[in-house]
């Protein structure tokens, strides 16, 4: 079936010799990062066949396995394929050698985040357990320095004028700066990834705008996720977490809007602008984001607990995952649980609401400040790869 390419002698000058640059350090890193089964692969290609999300032309993950075994880092990183993989783990379940291609590609993805994200040292720290306490110390110290250790007397209030949040001196500038830096870092990382892919693959597919539109549709519907067989239940769990993040994002935007617009106490008023917003509009806004926020919180907690239990259940077939996975899962779970708990304690007017809320803020900080370097970045890299796949015509 495969036809050998015959090179005529006179054509030899025209033949481009491809130089391979094996990076043995990379091989070791893949093995260390949860891809310890890498070397078991004997290239039978069962994985590429049972994979429902791979394209037919140059399918993955068989070729990624040999590229990783040979340390061909550039081949892996300049390709959308490692991110087109959704780690359904059908490959891992059917692998005759226990080489776990799903886990190996996950390890490669982690290293590729390290490779592209800026600054790189932070990525290496985020993905090593030994730096966990140090990284955690940053929000803890920042919050304590802002006065989070002080528990106010009187009824428990967080966001209302005069509430706990207002007593934290540096909280707004701190979180805003962090958010801007994280976004900047993400943008730079994604740009590096995009240009690396563009160098290696010509664009012959759909225009960028259409590619983005189609990708958004795919993601919203979880189209690829739904093709997974071994980890079928994962799609529902991931949908819950995914949509709850969107819900919580909307909640944050609306809440921030209220903080800006509120007469007398709002930011605009603070800077001397007098806005005329009706009280009923503001109350309506609060009711809407409270509903969205609480529903999202419930969905987030349900979804992340389902993800945890699915991972445990599938551990034998699909692998348990690595630090990179579990750090992210723990952060999301911690974020949801402390958020809900703080809310309940506040409603119950229990003073313990304050420390719980501070812990919640630490989770928020950790998740978003380190987003460009942790598994949180997967959504951006994967979305980029999906857009690129469509634009390059690989799909």
């Amino acid at each position, binding site marked *: *079936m*495969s*036809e050998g390419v015959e090179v005529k002698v006179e054509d030899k000058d025209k033949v481009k010799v491809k130089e391979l640059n094996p990076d043995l350090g990379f091989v070791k890193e893949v093995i260390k990062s949860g891809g310890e089964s890498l070397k078991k692969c*004997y*290239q*039978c*290609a*069962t994985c*590429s*066949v*049972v994979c429902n999300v*791979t*394209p*037919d*032309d*140059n*399918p993955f993950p*068989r*070729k990624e396995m040999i590229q990783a075994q040979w340390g061909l880092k550039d081949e892996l990183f300049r390709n959308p394929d490692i991110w087109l993989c959704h780690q359904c783990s059908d490959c891992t379940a*059917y*692998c*005759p*050698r*226990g080489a776990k291609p799903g886990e190996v590609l996950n390890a490669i993805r982690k290293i590729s985040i390290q490779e592209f994200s800026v600054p790189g040292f932070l990525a290496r720290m985020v993905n090593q357990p030994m730096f966990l306490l140090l990284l955690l110390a940053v929000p803890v110290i920042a919050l304590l320095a802002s006065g989070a250790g002080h528990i106010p007397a009187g009824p428990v209030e967080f966001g209302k004028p005069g509430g706990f949040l207002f007593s934290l001196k540096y909280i707004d500038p701190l979180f805003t700066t962090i958010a801007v830096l994280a976004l900047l870092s993400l943008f730079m990382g994604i740009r590096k990834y995009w240009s690396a892919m563009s160098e290696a693959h010509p664009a012959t597919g759909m225009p960028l705008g259409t590619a983005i539109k189609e990708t958004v549709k795919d993601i919203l519907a979880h189209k690829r996720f739904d093709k997974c067989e071994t980890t079928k239940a994962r799609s529902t769990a991931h949908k819950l977490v995914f949509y709850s993040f969107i819900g919580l994002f909307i909640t944050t935007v609306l809440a921030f809007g209220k903080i800006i617009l509120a007469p007398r106490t709002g930011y605009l008023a603070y800077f001397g602008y007098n806005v005329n917003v009706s009280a009923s509009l503001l109350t309506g806004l609060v009711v809407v984001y409270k509903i969205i926020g609480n529903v999202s919180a419930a969905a987030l907690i349900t979804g992340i607990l389902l993800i945890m239990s699915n991972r445990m259940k599938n551990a034998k077939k699909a692998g348990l995952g690595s630090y990179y996975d579990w750090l992210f899962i723990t952060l999301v779970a911690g974020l949801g649980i402390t958020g809900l708990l703080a809310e309940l304690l506040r409603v119950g007017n229990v003073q313990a609401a304050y420390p719980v809320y501070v812990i919640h803020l630490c989770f928020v900080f950790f998740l978003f400040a380190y987003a460009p370097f942790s598994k949180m970045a997967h959504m951006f890299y994967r979305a980029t790869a999906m857009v690129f796949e469509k634009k390059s015509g690989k799909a």
Partner: protein
Amino acid sequence: MAEQCILVIGGGISGLTAAIEAAEAGYDVCIVEKNPYLGGRVSQLNKYFPKLCPPVCGLEINYRRIKENARVKFYTMAQVESVTAKEGSYDVTVKVAPRYINDRCVSCDACAQACPAERQDDFNLGMGRTKAAYLPFDQAYPMRYVIDAASCKDGCMQKCKDACKYGAVELDMKPETVKINASAIVVATGWNPYDISKADNLGMGKVKNVITNMMMERLAAPNGPTAGKILRPSDGKEPKKVAFVQCAGSRDENHLPYCSYICCMASLKQTTYLKEQYPDATADIFYIDIRTPGRYEKFYWKVRDMEGVSFTKGKVAKVENTEGDDVLVTLEDTLSGKKVRLAFDMVVLAAGMESATRQNPIQLGINYTAEGMIVPGSLKPGIYAVGSSKSPVDVAKSVQDATGAALKAIQSAIKLLPAGGVR
């Protein structure tokens, strides 16, 4: 009084060889065989590789040697029940199931013709049915019918008895217990084809025209269900486009982690069956690695150079039904890096070998591997394992192994006798 002999468990090619070699050297031997006939898996084969000669000739010679040698005693439909371990002298209990037909049988087929019940034809791997009173196959040894009591109920057997002019049908035959005092034991329990329906992606049992390599042997064998004409099961069509799926269950931790050793040669051999019957047919062999050890490589070259035979590196990992009972296989051709879907008239799964001791371990106080194969190092003095009970092997290696084991068994037997004594 217990029978004094060297016990050979299993009457396939290994067991027959060990028994006959020891008997011809002057030692009494008992063969215990669970089937109603001797010859084992080899009797199901159409041809041997690499010479492509029919195995029945070799088996016939062995049966003649048994007939001429009073030192060989054999029990069919028999299984070892217990072994009391005493080094060099083993007390063995053998259970013999009733055959319901005695040695007056002349194989006239009258009982089968009169028999109202049917059973699945296990000799032909479930392809077709036989009467409940049946001869396992036309060259069976002993050449004697057998009644499958589980399929022949409620007066069914009486009809067989009434039809027999020779008084060969014995309805009140009971299970028997035979006591053997064995000076040595040769374990030649052989192998079973791996149940490849356990690989849910290869279509066995779900996709109509997917068969195993052993089924292909029966389809090609003159005494098989199609009288030797290779026809696909669903509609009896002549398959002109056949795929051979290598490593079906072998070299796979989810099934058999080891290489089954014979499957590549078997598929190459079966390609010659196909090309012999249908010169215009094509055979596609999908492999991870073609393993034709030692001098078998030459056989690979021979088949590789045949017209219409192609080899593709890439394991078939999806087998599905498609239009007109054809079979769709999916693989990645790893040399071109393309995922391909191809339709075939019929697909042959090169299913691997599983030691019979996996399903049916013998209690000899020995160790088995995780896959149920005997660990030779764990055998007690005087017990020898041969052939495919230890590792997947071909017929030639089994015969060599069994010949060596005959000598080892004789040495164990001699230790029981006074110095210089001959049995």
